């Protein structure tokens, strides 16, 4: 039965207009790693930016910047990061770090700051600028990704906006 089926396969493919390569197309082990999707690359960049935000807030908390509930805002950014990271599922062999946006190459990093650098003294103005830039970046990115991810970005952007108000100004 199996032999008969195998023998009949070329004829069946011919009648359906298919080639065997169409039917059995899959990952080519010699073609290298497949490219990551746009959503994954975007998510990696947003995660890197959120990590930079957390470092900034941590520096502000450590520097005892006089803002009410700064630790609360930091905790919410950690929640953002956790939620974003939960969405990121990479194939084996890929790094979770963004290939295009190394840590602190965030939209709110100081142009003069080296990657990964935390400013010596974090000011409220700096935090406000970071929140504003983060919300704007998320709004820009959310129109290019799948709806569920877009809604997460929109919610985080709205949270950033409430942080901006909480920081005063």
């Amino acid at each position, binding site marked *: 039965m199996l032999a008969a089926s195998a023998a009949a396969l070329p004829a069946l493919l011919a009648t359906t207009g298919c080639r065997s390569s169409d039917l059995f197309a899959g990952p080519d082990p010699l073609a290298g790693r497949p490219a990551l999707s746009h959503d994954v690359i975007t998510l990696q960049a947003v995660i890197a930016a959120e990590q930079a935000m957390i470092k900034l807030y941590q520096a502000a908390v450590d520097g005892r910047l006089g803002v009410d509930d700064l630790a*609360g*805002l930091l*905790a*919410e950014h950690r*929640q*953002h990061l956790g*939620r974003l990271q939960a969405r990121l599922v990479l194939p084996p062999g890929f790094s979770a770090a963004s290939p295009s946006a190394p840590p602190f190459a965030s939209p709110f990093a100081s142009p003069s700051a080296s990657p990964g650098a935390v400013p010596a003294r974090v000011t409220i103005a700096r935090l406000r600028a970071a929140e504003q830039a983060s*919300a704007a970046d*998320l*709004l820009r990115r*959310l*129109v290019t990704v799948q*709806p*569920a991810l*877009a*809604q*997460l*970005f*929109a*919610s*985080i*952007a*709205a*949270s950033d*906006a*409430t*942080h901006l*108000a*909480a920081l005063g100004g």
Partner: protein
Amino acid sequence: MTGVMATSAAAGRAVPTGRAALAAVRAVPALQAALAAEDAAIFGYGVAGAHLSGSRMSAAEQDWTVHNEARDTLTAMISALGATPVAAQAFYRLPFEVTDAASAAKLAAYLEEGVTRAYLGLVAVSDRRLRAFGALAMQGPAERAAFWRGTTEAFPGLDVPG
């Protein structure tokens, strides 16, 4: 709002055609939900305002005005898509009894959270401009909800399991 528009001679207004019409069909329910939330907020602020005074009363009046403007914007957007904007109800059942300033503030926060959720629904539509509109529009109610609640939250508009 959906790109391609044609002018309907009969109605004298722009209506979407082809793929734009399909996108509009999907966008209209989300816009209607946002409009319904705005209508509920307008009603609710009328109730809350009666129990507030001083700067809180002024804040409530300001927020009421913002919701009226948002209602007009949404009404125009829905009409431009060739649909009939959902009418406001004469009365809305409140989620809890409002008897003093504290419960009035709680109601205001509740209303703003509802509006935030409704605009977040727009972020799921395929039209990029509507998505951007919804994402931007939800920031105001999220900020006002934080004001009335007294605290910020990590995920405005989203149901996040604790």
